[in-house]
């Protein structure tokens, strides 16, 4: 099973600026000078082993869109944030054996999770089938609304694909593209839903835009059960713990600390921090990741928990 991240940023897409690129170049060259890099061979080795991810790469800036490969001639994707544009282009470039079938699973319909759809090329493709699954009764309304005049030039009714909306209920399980899919209600303004995907003994949980209040142990236990024995949990780690219990309390997001604690309680193998704060640059995200790795080490009681910070283009094989 492969999970591919097309958008990992929270709330609003962000882009690297020319100042950001210049900073990366300066950092890389200064380190290269210090390391005595003076040949093409040394350069490759230097890039591969000496440069940190935040200098040699970027975490990216697209809002949430995560694909789970199905091993069937159809697609499965969580949310349609701005990352959906690139995902759609890939779908268009890989058309084999007829128009694509795309299963979308929606956490909720806040703008950062639907804004990629007007630029999702398969929506304009005659014969393509797009099934949009979700637990909100305003699901279809939200998709139609964002393409209404005067906000967008192409009305939803003019999209060429066959688009179906499929209502799901939290707590029930469904078969979607060969996966057993179980939604769970999460704490977020207007509600959001996490999804547990199971197939062939592998478990992936997509749990974004979810605040954990810590005051009700039953609520915590419910999420621990939802995450139980997962191979991968994609977790909203947008804020610091301090923020979630002070200035950003009730903003509907969680922290790296709570993610690690819950993953440890649930015997999760891999925790992937997701929905990065848009004001964080690459250095800051890497620094939060390093602190989280340290926190896991300090609090480890059983086997180590693998922890990563999601980036646009990241692939995880399970």
């Amino acid at each position: 099973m492969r999970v591919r991240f097309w958008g990992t940023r929270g709330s609003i897409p962000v882009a690297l600026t020319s100042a950001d690129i210049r900073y990366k170049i300066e950092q890389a060259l200064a380190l290269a000078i210090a390391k005595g890099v003076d040949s093409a061979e040394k350069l490759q080795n230097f890039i591969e082993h000496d440069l940190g991810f935040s200098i040699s790469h970027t975490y990216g800036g697209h809002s949430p869109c995560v694909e789970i490969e199905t091993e069937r001639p159809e697609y499965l994707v969580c949310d349609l944030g701005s990352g959906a544009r690139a995902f759609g282009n890939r779908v268009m470039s890989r058309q084999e054996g007829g128009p694509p079938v795309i299963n979308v699973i929606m956490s909720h319909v806040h703008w950062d999770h639907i804004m990629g759809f007007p630029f999702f090329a398969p929506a304009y493709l005659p014969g393509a089938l797009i099934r949009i699954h979700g637990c909100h009764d305003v699901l279809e309304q939200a998709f139609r609304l964002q393409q209404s005049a005067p906000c967008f030039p192409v009305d939803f009714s003019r999209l060429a694909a066959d688009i179906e909306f499929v209502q799901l209920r939290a707590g029930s399980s469904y078969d979607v593209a060969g996966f057993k899919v179980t939604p769970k209600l999460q704490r977020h303004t207007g509600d959001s839903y996490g999804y547990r995907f199971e197939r062939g003994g592998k478990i992936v949980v997509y749990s974004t835009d979810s605040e954990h209040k810590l005051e009700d142990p039953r609520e915590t236990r419910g999420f621990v059960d939802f995450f139980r024995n997962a191979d991968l949990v994609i977790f909203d780690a947008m804020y610091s713990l301090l923020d979630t219990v002070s200035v950003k309390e009730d903003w509907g997001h969680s922290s790296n600390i709570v993610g690690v604690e819950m993953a440890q309680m649930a015997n999760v193998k891999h925790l992937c921090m997701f929905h990065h704060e848009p004001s964080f640059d690459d250095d800051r995200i890497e620094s939060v990741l390093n602190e989280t790795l340290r926190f896991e080490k300090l609090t480890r009681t059983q086997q180590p928990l693998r922890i990563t910070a999601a980036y646009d283009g990241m692939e995880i094989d399970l």
Partner: protein
Amino acid sequence: MDIRNKIHGDVLVLSPEGRIDHANSEEFRQALKPLIERCSEKGERLVLDLAGVDYVSSAGLRCFMLAEKQAKSQGGTIVVAAMQPVVNEIFQISRFTLVFETFPTVRDALAKLSPTALKAFDAAR
């Protein structure tokens, strides 16, 4: 949960012990609440002496935050002292050091908060 507490001049020093985690955080919060009520502008200032605390989970940290909010609304001051290295790191990673002033020892905290408290502390040793 019992929280040892001792007055030094005009400063109250609270000394919880063991782990403060999801299993006992509510009990800790209830035990802390009446003690925090004593912390106000005209009342006692407060030192959380964490020398005996091995571990604080997110639920435990939330109790500290609630205590700080309560004290602040009463015009009071809470500081943290004598954290074990693990707890100190957890405070830093969770960013709680941005809210709580921390000191290596209880004596250092008292020295910052009140000359009267420091005098009483030193006299009692």
